[in-house]
């Protein structure tokens, strides 16, 4: 936040993130959770809220939530239960949501977030609980003008994990950083695919401003519909400005819910009457309480994978990578796994890191777990390619072309290099002939003259000509030496 508002007001932000868990089936029934099926084809009496149907809890959803709670250093409550949360909305088939209220699965944790200027801050996590997702509404036109809407219940009942941060985030940038770190942990744990476009991760924010130095918190506003890192940052930045302007003008901030309109770049009020928020929670009688023992928690803790932060630190300390590289490589578990596997075949971490960052990430998004795991150039193939570079079989420049071919065909570097005869020419005799040809070419007379006048860089152009003539296969150092020799003798 670089605006003037920052100097006059403290910004207080809390984030509430809903993450879809990567279970095969829904929270309370056996319907699949796959995204993108034709409307109303992944439903049954339970997730469509038919009379007489009853929920039965998905064990894996509980395990995923416990795993996440442990990764966030939360206390997993020894007893928790589900509750019904009541409000009417046509995408919610029972007109209540099975959620958790007084006894959530876990509480009191935190997440370390990199904030401005290389600092790190721990943002508290207040609670983590499970609930069911609702269906999808398709409006015929915009919501405000649509004459009717259509309901698809495919998503209804998909397990959601709601995590509420403490109001300890101090800027829109920090909020985005929190969400990034949050997403990385979930993806690392394999509990969420982190796909924000498909709605796997959804974020609401509470934000208030208070004059610098004031103790009491200002009136908070809830902002909904923050479904990308950009949206989070932009919506909160807009809201900081809006609230600062209002406060500057001596206006009161209204406690309300506002919707971020990403297309138009502003938040707008969702008018709601005072009676709208009486959720009438009570314990869900159709489900029995959960008791989670210390032993189970200990077993799950032991099974936790290395988390992004620890791995990043290890990459710096053990592999000797610069922090920047370690950061990029740990953005997803699949990418870090890829890197480590490649290093096993080519024990030069920095070389591997350079290649992963410049070549692999040029063609595959670093946070796309599936794409990385399915890369046509598996880590062993990349290591094979780099071994050819290291032992001088091919040049670095050629290796880049080879990588592209490997990516297209799925072949190994050896196969391509052999078939296409791309091995470096180290034979001085044959290269000498090429060098002489270039020096004899009249178009290069100017470069030769320049060199003689002391412009040593002119030799570079001549080396380039030789490389071009050999289609890059010539050993560049050898060519350079030969060119220098010949020129000095001329």
């Amino acid at each position: 936040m670089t605006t003037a508002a920052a100097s006059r007001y403290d910004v207080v932000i809390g984030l509430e993130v809903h993450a879809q868990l990567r279970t095969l089936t829904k929270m309370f029934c056996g319907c699949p959770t796959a995204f993108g099926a034709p409307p109303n084809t992944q439903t049954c009496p339970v997730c469509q809220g038919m009379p007489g149907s009853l929920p039965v809890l998905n064990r894996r959803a509980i395990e995923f939530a416990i795993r996440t709670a442990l990764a966030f250093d939360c206390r997993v409550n020894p007893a928790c239960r589900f509750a019904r949360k009541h409000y009417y909305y046509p995408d919610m088939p029972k007109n209540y949501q099975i959620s958790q209220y007084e006894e959530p699965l876990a509480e009191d944790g935190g997440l370390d977030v990199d904030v401005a200027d290389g600092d790190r801050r721990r943002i508290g996590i207040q609670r983590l609980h499970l609930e069911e997702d609702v269906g999808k509404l398709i409006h015929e036109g915009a919501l405000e003008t649509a004459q009717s809407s259509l309901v698809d219940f495919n998503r209804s009942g998909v397990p959601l994990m709601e995590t509420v941060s403490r109001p300890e985030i101090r800027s829109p940038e920090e909020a985005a950083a929190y969400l990034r770190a949050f997403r990385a942990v979930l993806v690392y744990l394999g509990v969420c695919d982190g796909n924000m476009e498909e709605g796997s991760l959804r974020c609401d924010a509470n934000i208030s401003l208070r004059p610098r130095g004031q103790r009491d918190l200002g009136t908070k506003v809830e902002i909904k519909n923050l479904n990308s890192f950009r949206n989070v940052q932009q919506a909160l930045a807009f809201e900081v400005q809006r609230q600062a302007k209002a406060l500057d003008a001596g206006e009161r901030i209204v406690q309300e819910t506002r919707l971020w309109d990403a297309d138009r770049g502003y938040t707008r009020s969702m008018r709601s009457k005072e009676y709208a928020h009486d959720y009438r929670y009570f314990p869900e009688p159709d489900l029995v309480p959960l008791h989670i023992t210390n032993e189970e928690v200990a077993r799950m803790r032991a099974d936790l994978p290395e988390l992004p932060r620890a791995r990043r630190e290890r990459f710096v300390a053990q592999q000797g990578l610069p922090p920047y590289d370690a950061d990029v490589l740990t953005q997803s578990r699949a990418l870090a796994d890829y890197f480590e596997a490649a290093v096993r075949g080519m024990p030069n971490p920095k070389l591997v890191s350079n290649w992963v960052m410049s070549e692999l990430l040029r063609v595959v998004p670093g946070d796309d777990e599936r794409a990385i795991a399915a890369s046509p150039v598996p880590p062993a193939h990349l290591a094979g390619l780099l071994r050819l570079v290291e032992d001088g079989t091919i040049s670095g420049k050629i290796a880049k072309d080879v990588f592209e071919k490997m990516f297209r065909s799925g072949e190994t570097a050896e196969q391509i290099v052999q078939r296409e005869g791309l091995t470096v020419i180290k034979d001085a005799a044959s290269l000498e002939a090429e060098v002489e040809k270039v020096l004899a070419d009249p178009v290069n007379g100017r470069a030769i003259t320049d060199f003689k006048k002391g412009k040593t860089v002119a030799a570079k152009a001549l080396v380039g000509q030789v490389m071009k003539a050999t289609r890059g296969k010539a050993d560049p150092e050898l060519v350079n030496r030969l060119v220098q020799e010949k020129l000095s003798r001329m």
Partner: protein
Amino acid sequence: MTTVAVDGLSVAELTEAYRRRDLTPVAVTRAYLARIEALDPRVDAYLTVTADQALTAAKASEERYRTRSDLGPLDGVPIALKDVLCTRGVRTTCASKILENFVPPYDATVVARLAAAGAVPLGKTNLDEFAMGSSTEHSGFKPTRNPWDLSRVPGGSSGGSAAAVAGGLAAAAFGTDTGGSIRQPAAFCGVVGMKPTYGRVSRYGLVAFASSLDQIGPLTRDVRDTALVLRAIAGHDRRDSTSIDAPVPDYAGALDGDVRGLRLGIPAEYFAAGTDPEVERAVRTAIDVLRGLGATLHDLSLPTTDYALAAYYLIAPAEASSNLARYDGVKYGLRVPGKDLVDMESRTRAAGFGAEVKRRIMLGTYALSAGYQEAYYGKAQKVRTLVRRDFDAAFAEVDLIVAPTTPNVAFKHGEKADPLAMYLNDAFTIPANLAGIPAISVPCGFTTAGLPIGLQFIGRALDEARVLRAAHAYETAAPWRGRRPELG
């Protein structure tokens, strides 16, 4: 068409007659369908009669008897289902206009188990809308009449099922009991009705009224039939998280008639002022019979009884207000057009629900709403704990509790217009629901006006076998079953 006389036969007698080939399932089913056609216009026990389905099932059963293969425990037995049990392809209305045309795409677990047991489904019986009521007058479609006196109610909410068994319109029937809805109509109609332990019978496919109290159970001509039928439907179901995973005993096998040394508790609160003297006399006489059979009697107190009703009328409506929120005109059932979504939903619910259902939705919503939840719903949940403790203390001293099922006998249609007066009718049945324990009502005599009286046995959780044994011993010693209503 010649029809066989079926209305006096028990389930046990029917299956025995099939085995001996004295009767066939098809002939018996035809006889029941004929009785329904002739007599049900006067009783109105049924909302839907599934004649074709029944005959198809009867024919299949007959084939099994012919080949003596795959015979189920209820093979060829014509039964009736309270219309809150989902039946695939057969409309399930809950006696509510809001579900008038609802056809479930699936069977309730109980319905599937009955089919697997070979039972023949005659149809769906009437009830107080969504099982809320004690007279079956609050059906959204029509009131049911008591076969013993057509000017009187059959009780409720499982009034259609009780009347069907009493009137010889089904060999056995199934009801649901949330606050007495099986036992009270059983008492009013002179049949046996049992509410098993909460969790003993799967609720999957039972359209919920109050989820933490609802339990499915049988209504039959005698105790042995209840034992036979209960065994066919009880047992764990992975589709119901509140279903108990415990073996199902051979209930009928436990009916040895022996109650010697059985300790029976007699709770003072169930004999308080307000109980019809004729009811009290009949129940005391029955208790004497049990003493004569060797049971020992113990006076005791269940001090929270007086508060159980009040707690129930917070908990049940609160859960009901939640369970019934789904009827909004979006996915199934009635829709009344409106100018927008909220208007459509509000008008649909206004038109689809009857007065009693609306009353309970309002009461329940109020009891859960901000500012009142702790004082009402929260308080009621604590009182529920006290009710449970009462029973725990009692069962430390006695094996069973014996008491009247209801404070009075069947009343006239329209007699209890005041909702509270109607609610008070459930005072003796509600505590067992709050505690989740099994209870049965067996006929124990008649008033001078010829109306049946019910005797209630209440047992420990999962102790259905002992409840049935005592009820059976009493029934054998005092056979009221011979007396049947004269419907024709």
